[in-house]
């Protein structure tokens, strides 16, 4: 059985505890990075991370883009969306098609 992790600041992610997700409370990019690096070995298949935190570790997160065993999904934090998730979609469209055709 795989697990689902959530990384973010306390107010944004604590509520996911109620759904049985494994919650990591941190506001520090390096710590989040370490969690993600170990995540696959620790039996996580999905990691939700607040956009706020993801912003600091895009390089690490990008490395898992083509790994089918671990999905890193940005979610908006308590203070609302930063548009990073949408930007990522736009980026993959540009990568595949050559231009953003889904305006």
């Amino acid at each position, binding site marked *: *059985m*795989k*697990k*689902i992790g959530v990384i973010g600041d306390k*107010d*944004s992610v*604590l*509520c*996911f*505890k*109620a*759904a*049985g*997700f494994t919650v990591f409370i941190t506001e520090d990019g390096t710590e989040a990075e370490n969690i993600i690096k170990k995540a696959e070995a620790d039996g996580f*298949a*999905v990691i*939700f991370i607040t956009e706020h935190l993801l912003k600091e570790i895009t390089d690490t997160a990008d490395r898992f*883009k*083509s790994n*089918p*065993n671990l*999905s890193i*999904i940005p*979610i*908006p934090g*308590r203070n*609302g*969306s930063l548009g990073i*998730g*949408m930007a*990522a*979609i736009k980026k*993959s*469209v540009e*990568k*595949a*098609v050559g231009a953003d055709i*889904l305006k």
Partner: protein
Amino acid sequence: MPQKQVTPTRMELTRLKKRLMTARRGHKLLKDKRDELMKIFLDTVREDKALRKRIEERMQLLHSGFNLAAAVTSREIMEEALVYPKSEGELSVSYKNVMSVVVPEYSYEVKTNGGESPYGYGFAFTSGELDNAVGELYDMLPDLMRLAEVEKQSQMLADEIEKTRRRVNALEYIMIPGFEENIKAIIMKLDENDRGNTTRLMKVKDMMIEEQRKQNNMR
């Protein structure tokens, strides 16, 4: 574009022709693959976009719901309710093959250990607002899992499309023209040799006829 030197032999020619045929077939197949991938990708990414938009909106509601709950009861009680008799979730992952790209599929189930309520905590100290917020979260779970699926799928497909496109272009603009040019060069060289041979034979024939004639005259 000048190609590297090829030996103008018939063997080389047949070899090159075979490679050209394979390259053409590969090119056609890869092109079909690219088109199909693109079709699937666009569907996926459209769903991804819509789903993400919806989730971002609902997430906002969710957070305000939890804030409300925190305002009604004390923060400590709420956190305790969420943390202590913890619910456990089980995520099963299966893999699906989309045009030879292996993508994960998730299904998630929450199991609560607390017997008295479906939410895994007692009702005694917590408020109705918290129940609402947690209910909202449960409602959102299928969408969240689906989001994870399509997001991963669109990322992986984008990767694969890029790779396939590169292969198609390499075949179309480098490999196939290269083979064609080499084949042409060999054919030209062989034809030239042939013509040289024919003229030589004609010349020899003429010389032999001349010889014969001289012998006939002498007799």
